[in-house]
């Protein structure tokens, strides 16, 4: 199957065709910190085809979809996916980080954890998937500042696209902590592009060593670098604490339960520090450091995240 063959404009029935056209009507999404000046992308709902489902290791999958109609987004954003003709075992779509996106299509990386991911693991090339995105804000990209990327397990996913999109990937240092064999994770896409160190955590001792290393590296990058992190909640809490301790600019990419991905279900709320009058533009406020007097307020991860400043988000 050629990469573009799967780009599908007709779903299961004829009504889907007009649905797709309408779904493709342009609309602005909120813009994240992103590149200087911020770039907005158009969000749309499409039916994409499975181009390839690669096995990464026990329970790990790399899913390549036909190319979506949107431009290559800034890194750190996500999309919602739901098998168009799924098993019916689950109701809602699931959020996935955009792991890669290029002329060969869009790649997401996932681990089978529940009903929906089990369903996804059973998909075959040519199967249709409802997809809406790109959603959420992006990770900061600044060619003049060194970047420390801290990834834990499946938290590696957004950083593949980050390395792909960064104008100076050589300025990125990646520390990757993982419990399962390295082959499970899609590191091969970025090998040789940036500095990568891997840390196999087989026990608590290994984890303690990795934690110490994380502290040392955050301290190192605190003065002029940017720290980015994605991984399990405990890992993100540690990064957040250390970033605050060393006053490093750090961004945490959160994973939360979502039903809709577009701000309606309110299931992905996260506590953030915001001024009293934040309703007009919470995402913009959250891109800058907090001010004195800011209070805890819930915002939706899908609309104001998934990437939050460590000094703004409460975990």
């Amino acid at each position: 199957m050629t990469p573009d063959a799967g780009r599908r404009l007709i779903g299961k029935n004829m009504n889907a065709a007009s649905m797709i056209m309408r779904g493709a009507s342009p609309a602005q999404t909120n813009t994240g910190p992103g590149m200087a000046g911020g770039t907005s992308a158009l969000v749309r709902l499409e039916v994409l085809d499975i181009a390839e489902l690669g096995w990464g290791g026990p329970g790990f999958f790399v899913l390549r979809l036909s190319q979506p109609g949107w431009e290559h987004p800034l890194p750190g954003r996500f999309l919602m996916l739901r098998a168009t003709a799924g098993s019916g075992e689950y109701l809602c779509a699931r959020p996935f980080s955009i792991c890669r996106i290029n002329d060969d299509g869009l790649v997401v990386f996932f681990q089978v954890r529940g009903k929906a991911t089990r369903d996804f693991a059973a998909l075959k090339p040519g199967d249709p998937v409802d997809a809406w995105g790109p959603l959420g804000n992006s990770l900061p990209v600044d060619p003049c500042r060194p970047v420390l990327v801290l990834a834990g397990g499946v938290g590696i996913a957004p950083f593949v696209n980050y390395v792909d999109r960064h104008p100076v990937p050589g300025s990125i240092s990646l520390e990757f902590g993982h419990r399962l064999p390295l082959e499970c994770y899609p590191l091969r896409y970025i090998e040789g592009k940036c500095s990568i160190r891997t840390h196999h955590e087989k026990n608590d001792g290994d984890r303690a060593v990795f934690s110490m290393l994380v502290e040392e590296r955050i301290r190192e990058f605190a003065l002029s670098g940017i720290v980015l992190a994605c991984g399990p909640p405990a890992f993100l809490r540690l990064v957040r604490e250390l970033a605050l301790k060393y006053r490093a600019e750090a961004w945490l990419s959160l994973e939360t339960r979502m039903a809709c991905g577009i701000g309606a279900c309110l299931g992905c709320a996260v506590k953030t520090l915001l001024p009293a009058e934040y309703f007009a533009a919470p995402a913009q406020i959250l891109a800058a450091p907090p001010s004195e007097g800011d209070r805890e307020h819930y915002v939706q991860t899908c609309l104001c995240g998934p990437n939050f400043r460590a000094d703004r988000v409460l975990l």
Partner: protein
Amino acid sequence: MSADGRENARLRVCLKGASASLALNNPVLTASGTFGYGLEFSPYGDLRKLGGIVVKGLSLKPREGNPMPRIAETPCGLLNSVGLQNCGAKVFLRYKLPLLPVEVVPVIVNLYAATIDEFADLAGLFAGERGIAALEVNISCPNVREGGLLFGQNPRMAAEVTAAVRARCPDKPLIVKLTPNVTDIAVIAKACAEAGADMLSCINTLSGMAVDLSTRRPLLATIIGGLSGPAIKPVALRSVWQVSRAVSIPVIGIGGIGSADDVLEFILAGAGAVQVGTASFSRPDAVFRIVEDLPAAMEKYGVEDLDAFRGSLRTWQAD
């Protein structure tokens, strides 16, 4: 009249209340709490094509809502305990309402308050707003400790809330949203109708719970939440049937509606219009597709006139 024009005319419904009516271009509205403040969905369809937009429940002051986790999927359903996180009525009027196409599509606000006085104040706030087509009073939220469900489970209190809102907002259609978490929904329905409700919407979520055996924790921080989605459709249909036979005011059906066929099922059972809820989470264009599919579904089942079709269920006894 063009073919399109005739088709559009066939979809129109008018919900005639006791003191105010609501004219809709089609009988498909969005359900409160599943469609944000409307604009979230504009990338996925044309808001102007909807029968009406019922926005997220609003309170006098902003509410932070319940702690996380707040949502959990269950077989054919979704449990939630959002707890009415919302920006508050004033922020809605200032920042959200001006961006909605109120001239073309009715925008209905859903009201939540913890006391009868607060309900009245909230109604007063919207009474003079030209952009608001109707009020829907939420006396049925299972996820808030005070007010909410308590009002909806007691016919006397349901009537008091209805009367208080009616008094402060006499000119706009008043919808009261009922809970299925009662022994006899018809009793509550009658109490609200007698107290001045123009129409009733049913149902809100069913009280429910889910647990995780491996962590031995409930899936929701509040333990108990509200169940929505296809799982509750039979309960919703039954409620619409019972309520529409108990009162003479229009009934708006809500609960597990995900297709144009579902819309017709509710109208057959007695609903004047419907609201699409959880389906909008599964696919953000769900409600737009349903509106688009409705003429074909009417054609398929030989429905010429929605008014005549409404409540025309042929019972076995009658045969």
